[in-house]
């Protein structure tokens, strides 16, 4: 099994280009890759589209800033596709003042859209959002007496993920609730970059417990400061 390239945070950030769709794993920052995001902030790349469950915590008064909030703060994204921004006052402000385009998507639909992109599906029928604003502009298809919205796949150029353990081939395991969107985004993006807290030899990971198969991973970055941000 070939090994994946292990690169630095800085080299990883250079792989992310203006205008790209960037998917970032994590839920309220839990599962977001802090060091990759810090280097992306340092690189100052702009005009990206962010796909992330939420925009992390942004409460500067309490020094609670995590996940992609550090990038949102620098307005690195011209568009954000997300399910929840309730704990990030800065992205709310950017949205209300028209500085950043924000598209709010039900969380289950967002997860399934990313999965659909990774799995080669052209869309799916979900009951979520029927009769709400989410229905606007979408095709409604009835099946067995129930209404569904036709939702389409969402793919990305680059995924920035956090794993607890990677083997050198790129197989991944996540830590507890940090799994969330990682396995889906790994399948849906052209280039997948993973910050791993531990990198082990090929063969050391139980093949029954691998969550993301190696073939989805392009680059590994080793976490330097395990305490994270």
């Amino acid at each position: 099994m070939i090994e994946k390239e292990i690169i630095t945070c800085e080299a990883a950030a250079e792989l992310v280009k203006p205008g790209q769709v960037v998917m970032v794993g994590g839920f309220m920052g839990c599962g977001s890759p802090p060091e990759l995001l810090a280097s992306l902030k340092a690189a100052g790349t702009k005009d990206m589209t962010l796909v992330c469950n939420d925009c992390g915590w942004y409460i500067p008064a309490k020094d609670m800033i995590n996940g992609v909030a550090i990038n949102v703060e620098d307005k690195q994204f011209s568009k954000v596709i997300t399910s929840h921004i309730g704990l990030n006052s800065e992205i709310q402000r950017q949205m209300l003042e028209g500085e950043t385009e924000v598209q709010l998507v039900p969380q289950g639909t967002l997860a399934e859209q990313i999965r659909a992109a990774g799995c080669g599906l052209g869309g799916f029928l979900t009951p979520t959002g029927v009769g709400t604003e989410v229905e606007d502009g979408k095709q409604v298809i009835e099946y067995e007496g129930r209404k569904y919205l036709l939702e389409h796949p969402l793919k990305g150029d680059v995924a920035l993920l956090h794993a607890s353990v990677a083997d050198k081939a790129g197989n991944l395991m996540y830590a507890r609730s940090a799994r969330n969107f990682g396995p889906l985004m790994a399948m849906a993006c052209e280039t997948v970059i993973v910050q791993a807290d531990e990198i082990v030899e090929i063969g050391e990971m139980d093949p029954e417990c691998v969550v993301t198969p190696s073939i989805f991973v392009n680059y590994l970055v080793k976490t330097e400061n395990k305490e994270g941000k």
Partner: protein
Amino acid sequence: MDYTPRKDVIAKRIARLFSNGNVVNLGIGLPTQVGNYVPEGVDIILQSENGFMGLGPAPEKGKEDPFLVNAGGAPVTLLSGGCYFDSATSFGIIRGGHVDYTVLGVLEVDQHGNLANYKIPGKMVPGMGGAMDLTVGSKKVIAATVHFDKKGNSKLMEKCTLPLTALNEVDILVTDVGYFEIKDGAFVLKETFAPYTAEFVQESTTANLVIAPDYKQVVII
């Protein structure tokens, strides 16, 4: 009759709806408190939409695990027998009808079972998170709210005015005054919580209200 908000009453009554083995998702805020009042001997499984089931209590101070948080981002624990999964599976569980009860907070709820709890246009636009999927997908949807808003208006509405979270999906409404089923375009009063009476609810309600044949006043301790 005087009214004092009592969130604990709401949480206590909801907690008694569950039976052994039920899979339950508790929303952030008031619904989370329901977990504190599940009766002895009733073993429910809490699902957390960010990717696990078997959600346990908050850890001791100092023992927080940054990689184990609930859907509100707060540190929690995993009970023995719980397990982790990704977000597509998590919402497969939710949308697929494998959650018996979801308990959600309320901005507005009406006699048709419509729920609005995620947006006040121009004022509060946090996004729906998992609320739309939970409301559409769970077998039973329980709305939890204090009975009156700050201006003293009943939360039992004829028709929601805010953007909806879901259409006709709320099955049960529990306030600090009573327990209602929502059926055929009406709030069906099953219980009031002492000292409140059915008359008190009738007087303060303009929405369609039906007193259930088996209505009773109960004491919530």
